[in-house]
């Protein structure tokens, strides 16, 4: 067992990075979408005609989970865990693991806070439906930090490939 781990430590760390990117960003999105969904359900119980509007707000925190999935897919693809398995050194595996961390943690926290912001924005649209555009910008601002993290994770993965 210890020999197997020693020989495949690189792959193990790469896979751990992919797992972190997927489940941490996914947890964040699940919490964010869940919170916004609860608020959206509250709105719909009073005014079902607002379904289209509140659905957009509910979906905003879902993107972090997708970003995590994208990073995980790139890692799996570059290490050959999808398709032909490649030789991955321990150092390369650790580098992939590190590359996954920005989107993993930024995805987790930004999705939770985007969910909170979306709940407040749903309240705004509920009272003033004509302010939909402005209300949408506020939670969308939180997305910036998830995108920055995604960018760094992707650049890091491509950088590791070029080494």
């Amino acid at each position, binding site marked *: 067992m210890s020999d197997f781990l020693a020989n495949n430590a690189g792959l193990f760390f790469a896979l751990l990075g992919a797992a972190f990117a997927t489940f941490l960003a996914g947890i964040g999105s699940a919490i964010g979408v869940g919170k916004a969904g*609860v*608020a959206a359900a*509250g*709105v719909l119980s009073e005014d079902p005609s607002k379904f289209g509007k509140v659905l957009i707000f509910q979906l905003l925190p879902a993107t972090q989970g997708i970003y995590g999935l994208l990073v995980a897919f790139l890692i799996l693809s570059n290490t050959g865990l999808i398709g032909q398995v490649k030789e991955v050194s321990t150092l390369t595996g650790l580098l992939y693991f590190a590359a996954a961390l920005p989107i993993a943690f930024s995805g987790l926290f930004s999705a939770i806070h985007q969910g909170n912001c979306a709940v407040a924005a749903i309240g705004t649209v*509920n009272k003033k439906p004509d302010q939909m555009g402005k209300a949408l910008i506020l939670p969308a601002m939180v997305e910036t930090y998830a995108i920055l993290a995604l960018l760094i994770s992707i650049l890091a993965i491509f950088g590791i490939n070029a080494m």
Partner: protein
Amino acid sequence: MRQTDFTYAVARVRYKETKLLTDNDLDTMLRCHDADAVLRFLKDRGWGDSSEDETVDELLDKELERTWEFAFESVDDHEALNFLLIPNDFHNAKVAVKCITRDIEPEGIMLRQAVFAPDTLYESVRLHDYDRLPDYLRGCVREALHTLLQTSDGQLCDVIIDRACLMTVYQLGRESGVDIIERYCELYVASSDIKIAVRSAKTGKSADFLRRALAPCDTLNIDKLITAATAGVDEVIDYLRETVYRTATDALSVSLSAFEKWCDDTITDALRPQKWEPFSIGPIVAYILARENELKAARMILLSKLNALDDDIIKERLRSMYV
């Protein structure tokens, strides 16, 4: 475990807030020629049921019932709203004690919106089965009934139950850990103490009576208030100038109803920031109090139209609206 996330309820409240009466709506109601026109205006806003022959009391009772139905439907932790309903339990306790000693049926006098079922309360008092009563009622109901039977002093009976009510509300405020509930409960107790002190000063009550009637709170020194109340109304006002209620003294100099308006307006002002709070119980509390406030305003306007009172008299008494 106490409910801490009220996202669903707050989302519903945000919609309901758009249906609350505004100051402009109150002006429109005041401009109506008669009570029927005011009723039509309220019915157009969705108040009451569809029946044409609904009376003022039926309409307002229906709306109060709807407000509480909505609150209980939206909030899982009903106990979180006890501080608003518990005064009704104490009102029902007074009714039960007095009806039983005078051998009257409490038909239509007990309030349905209460924490403890009014029928069970009445039966428990009638059978002297105090163990069925909740802790907050048990002691004061037993003492009030005993006092009423021995002395026939209805006012003393009220004082015992009212003080227990104030102490319970104060305690619930402290235990809530929610700033807006603490502030509401504190103002509820303090304003009641001030009203008791002023009335007592006017009627020349003794310090002993005041000690039995006043409930302790954080913003008033009860000993100083008792000393002031035994000296006179002006002394009470002078004492209040030293407290956080100095802005209430002008209203108090006018009348107790002006002071009550000051209390309601102060609470409404304190509640306004809840319009931007998305997660806590604050907006639900604010909505319930805002609804009670508008029902009070609607009742005032309707009764003024029914009794052909001057609009200016009513305008002075109308509270500022939450929205």
